[in-house]
């Protein structure tokens, strides 16, 4: 047994004697004068998904990338979803707990509901993407004899606008639920910390002027309406500090 492994086991044993004082076999018990229960190696660090975590097929990925590129286009004014690599963000999210709808209430019965009752799809996000992408391409094949990703930008904008306005509907999923979700996810991927795969090199933060994961602005309280030029910082530092 190597040293670090032994140290890890020791810490578990120590933790066991210090904290699990008595009482139930499961669930944790604290208190009885033991103080705040700090333990080594228990930091609740963010889970960002590994770089090879993937849900989308190559074709799906191309379609999602095409949608994202119209929702947040790359243009003369600055970078868009493509430069921010939003599709990688979405792919990782769909491959993880979010895609599985692990924290959402997904028990039936399912009903459409009124507009004020919120998301009511029987499909968790990953499944909603997969099924909706099929229907999206079926629609585009019917109307343009071409899948979404091969349409012109004008045609793509037109299709997305009609999805948004509920003029295009799908047979088995809610086209509007899908549109709302991918728009939300695209904005998330554009602006989230780069540890999640999007907002690559903090392009979105630089574009709008958000300084990122800083935590002390006391020196700037008296800005008086002047612009503050602060380069952004991510949870993993700044470009050049570490590899992404």
């Amino acid at each position, binding site marked *: 047994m190597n040293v670090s492994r032994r140290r890890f086991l020791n810490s578990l044993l120590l933790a066991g004697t210090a904290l699990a004082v008595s*009482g139930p*076999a499961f669930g944790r018990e604290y208190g009885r004068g033991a103080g705040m229960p700090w333990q080594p190696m228990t930091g609740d660090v963010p889970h960002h998904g590994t770089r090879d975590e993937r849900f989308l097929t190559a074709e799906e990925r191309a379609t999602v990338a095409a949608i994202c590129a*119209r929702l947040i286009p790359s243009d003369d*004014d600055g970078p868009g979803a493509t430069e921010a690599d939003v599709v990688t963000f979405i792919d990782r999210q769909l491959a993880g707990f979010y895609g599985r709808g692990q924290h959402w209430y997904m028990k039936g019965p399912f009903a459409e509901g009124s507009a004020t009752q*919120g998301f009511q799809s029987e499909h968790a996000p990953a499944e909603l993407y997969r099924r909706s992408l099929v229907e999206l391409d079926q629609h585009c094949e019917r109307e343009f004899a071409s899948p979404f990703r091969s349409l012109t930008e004008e045609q793509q*904008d037109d299709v997305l606008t009609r999805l948004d306005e509920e003029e295009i509907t799908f047979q088995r999923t809610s086209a509007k639920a899908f549109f709302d979700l991918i728009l939300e996810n695209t904005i998330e991927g554009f602006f989230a*910390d780069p540890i999640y795969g999007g907002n690559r090199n903090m392009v979105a933060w630089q574009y709008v002027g958000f300084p990122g994961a800083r*935590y002390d602005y006391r020196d700037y309280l008296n800005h008086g309406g002047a612009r*503050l030029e602060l380069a952004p910082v991510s949870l993993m530092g700044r470009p050049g500090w570490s590899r992404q």
Partner: protein
Amino acid sequence: MTRRMPDVDVVIVGFGWTGAIMAEKLTAAGLGVLAVERGPWRDTPTHFPTTFAQDELRYYWRHGMFQEASRETLTFRNNRSQTALPMRRWGSFLPGNGVGGAGVHWNGQTFRFLPSDFVARSHNEERYGPLPDDMTVQDYGVTYDELEPHFDYFERIAGISGQAGNVKGNLIEGGNPFEGVRSDHYPNPPMQMTFSQDRFTAAARELGLSPFPGPSANMSRAYTNPLGMQLAPCTYCGFCEKYGCGNYSKASPQTTILPELMRRQNFVLRTNSEVLSIEKSRDGTRASGVRYVDSQGEEHLQPAQIVILAAYPLQNTRLLLLSQIGQPYNPATGEGVVGKNYCYQVMSSAEVFFEDEYTNEFVGAGALGAVVDDYNGDNFDHSGLGFIGGGYIACWTTNARPIESHPVPDGVPEWGSKWKRAVRENFLKTTSVGLHGASMAHRTNYLDLDPTYTDAWGQPLLRMTYDFTLNDRLLTAHITPIVEQIARGMGGREIKVNHRRGSYDVKPYQTTHNTGGTIMGVSPANSVTNRYCQNWDLPNLFITGAGLFPQNAGYNPTGTVAALAYWSADAIINQYLAAPGPLVQT
């Protein structure tokens, strides 16, 4: 298969702000206290240090510290003619989970309700005549003057930064001239205002209003509270609401109470343990303890002399209904009490877009703001207006977290090149003026158990039936134009008004101020607890939280929630222990 645990003096259900307050007071009085919390342990160095606390995706959009909807959510409908459907993902509000509860991820805006808010029915009827039949507004049964020492104590525990407006009847320039009489100043000076607050303050004064700095649980300086807990100066990082503070700068149970409480021999906390019901004695006259299940599914019976229900208001209501304590409210007849008078908050706002000036709202804090109270409560004459209550108007600079906050002016599309450009042009140049409106109780807004949907243990979900009322609509229609006037006076290029119109919608986040359902009052015929927050049916059951509010005032609830918990703890220690029975005779 139920495992019977050794008796305790007090069992507390849920371990957020009020659970911690009760545990601290009752252990100090010598009682043995056990808190049962369904979520995990949570503390600053392990769960939200400054090296990764500022993670917008994780904590807000992926609900890092909220109740897991997959295990238990609630169902919702606007009215009784609809079928309620589950809130499959959180939207309008974000119930907390774990040690510290929502007290970990609140903003820290810490108000006292007005004296007239506690006597909303009698005060308004005396001044304006009878309320409409379907307005089920009631008096609290406890007055502002009785709560004042407890407001004061909580403000010292939480290190509130603010400017008093009325200390012992002496009006103080720069404070809130409408506030109830205070026995003392705030323990800390106000936070440092920024550009947006300066503009709001000037515009409000121009209109003859009385702006003051928002009372804040973000520290304006280093502070040591009466329990000896040390808090650090706020760094204005802009990650308060929905986030834990990595810097020990925001009052929470973790920063103000737990380090002391966890040193006491007579306190025990069980985490990952979810209470399924409150148990009654054989003769049904007392609570005998609670039944809970741990994360491995093992069921436990925890006997106790006193049960304190201190979970989130929606959960407190649900536990009473599941435990068949008290008569469920029936909106058809107006009879019954449990689930009655569910209220919320009526919000509207005006965003201000500047041309050449920068608001830099990333320099912000959860309770950094300037406020006017001229249109709150009964601070203005309601004669002929057709509604009661009001709300404060404020310019808070809480954040510029870009997934959540990227306002664009009227007429800009919601995606595409024009949207993207507008986001960039305005991102550093906007602020907003908000109306935080009261929500008055109405006969048809209530909580009960859902007939169809169940939680992870197979128990019925809570069902919410709620919509904005006529009072809400008249209130917001009257005061939103004042919001607009202030916003126009702030020197921006243009404003965008977000009216409160249409039905209540559970999708967009509004506020986590869900109130009522376990209301306090003067009679068992129309309330769940007496004025000491003691259940009318089971005298050894006490209830905390905003569920006690008979209706919601135009303020954030935490200050009043905490004062009620201290008031109730005081009654338990100084009255109940000597004579364990009903503290109010019926």
